[in-house]
């Protein structure tokens, strides 16, 4: 098997993981960010701090707790028992759950900032124009915050692709199931498959560049929208 077809499997798995994680994160993080941006409750910053924890925790710590939670004695094991499995650890869906926690702060923060930048006024204007709170959210707040949602999605996707420690702790590196690009590179290096490691590493560099560039362009568009 030539090197390119060999590395394809981890690349595909990584893209699947990142896409599913990002979609799930947008659904979870958007209402959470909305609440964090708009609520007047004092304790919301405690929630915000908890959400931000993975940013400063060593991935091994996060991975350790996730391993326990996903394992046979944790809630993950209970969920797995629904279809007769013993654990969510070392499975693809376990990786999705872990990635959601690990990447959450990178998605919540830009969306929260975008909602905060929209401010009260457009929502008040919408209300004076008979828009219910739900309609105002969909037709005013979301479109105005869309650059923030876009940067949240890009950052969440990129961070999921780049996550190594958590993935290694809760996923191992089972080919076709949990062996994503970052862990695959580690394996290739350990087994001295420099050519494969090189291809994956090069892809990651190119990807990171595209991410950074698109972030800059989104930021520019955001500035124009506000101006």
């Amino acid at each position, binding site marked *: 098997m030539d090197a390119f077809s060999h590395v394809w499997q981890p690349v595909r798995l990584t893209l699947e993981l990142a896409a599913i994680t990002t979609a799930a994160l947008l659904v979870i993080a958007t209402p959470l960010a909305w609440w964090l941006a708009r609520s007047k409750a004092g304790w919301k910053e405690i929630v915000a701090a908890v959400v931000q924890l993975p940013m400063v925790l060593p991935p091994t710590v996060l991975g350790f707790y996730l391993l326990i939670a996903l394992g046979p004695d944790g809630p993950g094991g209970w969920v797995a028992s629904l279809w007769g499995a013993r654990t969510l650890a070392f499975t693809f869906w376990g990786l999705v759950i872990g990635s959601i926690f690990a990447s959450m702060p990178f998605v919540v923060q830009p969306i929260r900032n975008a909602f905060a930048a929209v401010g009260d*006024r*457009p929502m*008040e*204007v*919408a*209300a*004076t*124009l*008979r*828009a*219910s*709170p739900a309609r*105002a959210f969909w*037709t*005013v707040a979301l*479109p*105005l915050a869309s650059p923030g949602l876009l940067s949240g999605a890009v950052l969440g996707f990129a961070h999921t692709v780049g996550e190594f420690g958590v993935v290694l702790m809760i996923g191992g590196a089972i080919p076709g199931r949990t062996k994503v690009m970052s862990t695959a590179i580690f394996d290739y290096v350990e087994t001295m498959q420099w050519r494969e490691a090189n291809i994956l590493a090069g892809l990651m560099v190119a990807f990171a560049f595209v991410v950074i560039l698109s972030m800059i362009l989104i930021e520019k568009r955001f500035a124009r*929208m*506000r*101006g």
Partner: protein
Amino acid sequence: MSQSPGTHPHTIRAAFRGTLGKFALDAGFSAPAKGVTALFGPSGCGKTTVLRCIAGLNRLADGVCDIDGDVWQDRDGTFLPTHRRPLGYVFQEASLFPHLTVRKNLLFGAPRGDAGKNNPVAFDEVTDLLGVTPLLDRSPRNLSGGERQRVAIGRALLSQPKLLLMDEPLSALDRVTKSEILPFLERLRDRLSLPIVYITHDIAEVERLADQVVLMEKGRVLAAGPLADLQSDPSLPLATARDAAVTLDTTVEAYDRAYGLLTLTVRGSRFFVPATPSPVGERRRIRIISTDVSLTRAPPGPSSILNLSPGRIVSAKPIDSNEIVAVVALGSDGEGARVLSRLTRKSWDELRLGVDVAVFAQVKAVALGPGRGE
């Protein structure tokens, strides 16, 4: 105010008491639900808070808001959320939605489908009235300040409100743009039978637009009533201000083409005003500045002053030790419209003026002409 419980048709009744942040508000007024009601007072006196309470954007538990027979808020806990109140709100800054075109901004609050079939305010009428037809497909980002504010007014009107609330809609604009929008507001007032509550701290806007005034100071209402009544009440600060004036709504009686003079009638008197032709019967508002009105005890001989009207002094108030402002009811019976005359105490004493004294009030016609009285 009526003692009967329940609602009050054709009336705007609003009363709010409580604190918002550090600001204490205890303001209530009631006004006819027609024409323009100006909330007038210095910055920080609570005008905006009252308007936001009427709109339901702020909520004070101790509040009553009853618009033309519909209860929007009551002390029993009734509180309609803003989006269920049939109102239009024009904010100080236009606050257009930047992600929508002018057309979509205008239509944002317009009833859709069957509900929109019998709209009293039609799209084309509003865009024409406000002169925004050429802007429809533009983005709000590319509009001037005046254009934006006109779109914001149109957007509020097209939501088919029963009450239009305007919070200093002109204050963020420069003088030229202001004078470009004021005529639109006047047309609005005259063409649509929509009650407007209008906040301003600029007496010139009150004089041009208002029918009723609610005078506010430090979170309270000093007085409320028809504009001319408040202007001619010497116990209120309006009458003793340096630029005090009364505004009179007059009817065009005739036009003298040879001299370019309009004859305007008002209760108890008539005025000659140099002006462009106006159709007979049209309503015209004139402004008579207190320092332009002089008083005599006997009808003068030949004079250059065209406007001479008998009247009676109904009240007077010293402004300082040198000057007095007198309120004169026009007409030989002293039952007509009231004007203010600001004069020196020396004149007051030498003419032996006083309350109930019959006088003649004189106003130069040019003092009522373009750029002065109008």
